[in-house]
């Protein structure tokens, strides 16, 4: 980590506090697994070199707006994920290895067999979550294309697409259009008909919900 941090040509995103000491005083990005929920935390991290902060998916737009305003005062920009499975939890145990009856230290990288994650369903066979190694994600894909205009007006300039196992070039065009204020040619549901989309967190609801704009 120290070697990486010494290479100033790299942009480094910290997703654990243990990565922060070597990044101290050098421009860096804070990822969604470091909890930045309020102005005070943003201010502290910005004072030590955080220039961009990608928020936890559970934060509603109201919080993102407040943080974007605070960020402007401290030269830190806000990034919001707008597409893809949402990162929901991390664990010390690898559920992928476990599901394939392997131990974490001899996992044979089985997670690579499931480029889009391994679907976890309820006992009623309702798709619920997705397992990707030590990470647990949402089964639904986040879609905030229709909210990008509102976020831009609040000063949010960075929008994250989490890569899924689909035609990401088309997806990127779709969100590029949205970011440039052009009407999307098609709804995201038409591009990926087999996927369930959600946007509930944006207005402070359950994350799995799909609420109409």
């Amino acid at each position, binding site marked *: *980590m120290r070697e990486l941090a010494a290479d100033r040509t790299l942009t480094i995103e910290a997703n*654990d*506090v*243990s*990565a*922060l*000491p070597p990044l101290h005083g050098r421009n860096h990005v804070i990822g969604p*697994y470091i*909890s*930045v*929920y*309020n*102005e*005070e*935390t*943003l*201010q*502290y*991290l910005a004072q030590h070199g955080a220039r961009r902060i990608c928020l*936890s998916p*559970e934060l509603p737009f*109201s*919080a993102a707006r*407040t*943080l974007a305003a*605070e960020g402007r005062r401290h030269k830190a920009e806000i990034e919001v994920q707008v597409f893809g499975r*949402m*990162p*929901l*939890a*991390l*664990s*010390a*145990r*690898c*559920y992928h*290895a*476990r*599901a*394939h*009856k392997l*131990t*974490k*230290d001899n996992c044979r990288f089985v997670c690579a067999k499931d480029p889009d994650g*391994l*679907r*976890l*369903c*309820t*006992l009623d*066979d*309702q798709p*619920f*979550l997705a*397992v990707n190694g030590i990470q*647990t994600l949402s089964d639904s894909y986040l879609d905030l294309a229709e909210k990008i205009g509102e976020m831009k007006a609040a000063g949010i300039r960075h929008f994250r697409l989490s890569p899924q196992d689909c035609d990401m070039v088309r997806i990127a065009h779709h969100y590029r259009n949205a970011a440039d204020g052009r009407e999307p040619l098609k709804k995201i549901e038409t591009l990926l008909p087999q996927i369930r989309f959600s946007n509930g967190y944006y207005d402070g*609801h*359950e*994350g*799995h919900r799909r609420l109409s704009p």
Partner: protein
Amino acid sequence: MKQIKSLPELVCPAGTPSALRVAVDAGADVVYCGFRDKTNARNFPGLNFSRDEMADGIRYAHTHGAKTYIAINTFPQAGNVTLWKQAVDDAASFGADAVIVADIGLAAYTAKNHPHLRLHLSVQASASNEDAICYYCDAFNVKRVVLPRVLSIPEITALNSVIPCETEVFAFGGLCVMAEGRCNLSSYATGKSPNMNGVCSPASHVRYRQDKDGAMTSKLGEFTINRFAKEEAAGYPTLCKGRFRLNGEAGYIFEEPTSLDALSLLPDLLKSGVAALKIEGRQRGRAYIEAVVLAFRQALDAYAKGRPIKTDALINLAEGGQSTRRPAGRAGPAAEGEKRNRHLLPRHGHEQARGQCHARAGGGPDADDRGQ
């Protein structure tokens, strides 16, 4: 007689003023509690302390030779940070012996405005390695870190020799399966989360459904978390401790709904150099608190005098508790496929050594199974 320098502090939960008194009377060195609002990670109806109750509680503890730590360990809400700052200010003015915080901004505020107030890092900050812990110590003069439960005793021992602060470890109760303070599972299903609301899998979103075959289905929001056969007792649907289907098999995919009981590991744990043992459960009733605190007090005192520790002191309580879910040690009829999946459960192999932490699985009802 074995000579030991000092025993670690026994840090006990108190969700109400009467639980606080019970814990102190039963031999707690420290009680930890929270204000009655979303500043603490046990923000349940009917629980926690008003300002007056907190001041009285601290006075009671101090008169009886015990300390009080105040947990202010949720993440302050953007635009409303004052509520959390006020909680720290009040804790300081009431004479709390420490505050337990998780948020970087709140830690910075506390260090700056109350430099003499002891600052402890909550497990919700999920600081599990040397670099992360040192970051908090250097930046905010953190005096103690509450360690995540994933660490094994050798790992705890190794950490204690390299970090500049004390460590506190969980010894009993229900704990998080995922990295604490980074879990959005609850809000994904219910809109309410530990980080923002101080609740996980909140009771307001829990429903039980009796099925035709006599089975009981527990749901959290729209999602089925578990199903219990007729003769099986239905447990509380804490999300990460539910039964799900993964890769064609059904079972406890993340973790069995068991809780931690470190009584049998106490001698090794004490040698690891921890400064404090923590009991989870601010949501518990007085009888439970009294039994657990007494058992740990007796175990610690026995250890100090070189006498054997009664390691099964809490088994009845644990099994009694576990009967709200499933009798310990029996597979139970359970959901279909569960037996097939049992060898995947955290019993054997290397992963258990790391993932299953320093304690054996005990029991105990997990109305809310998070660490704090």
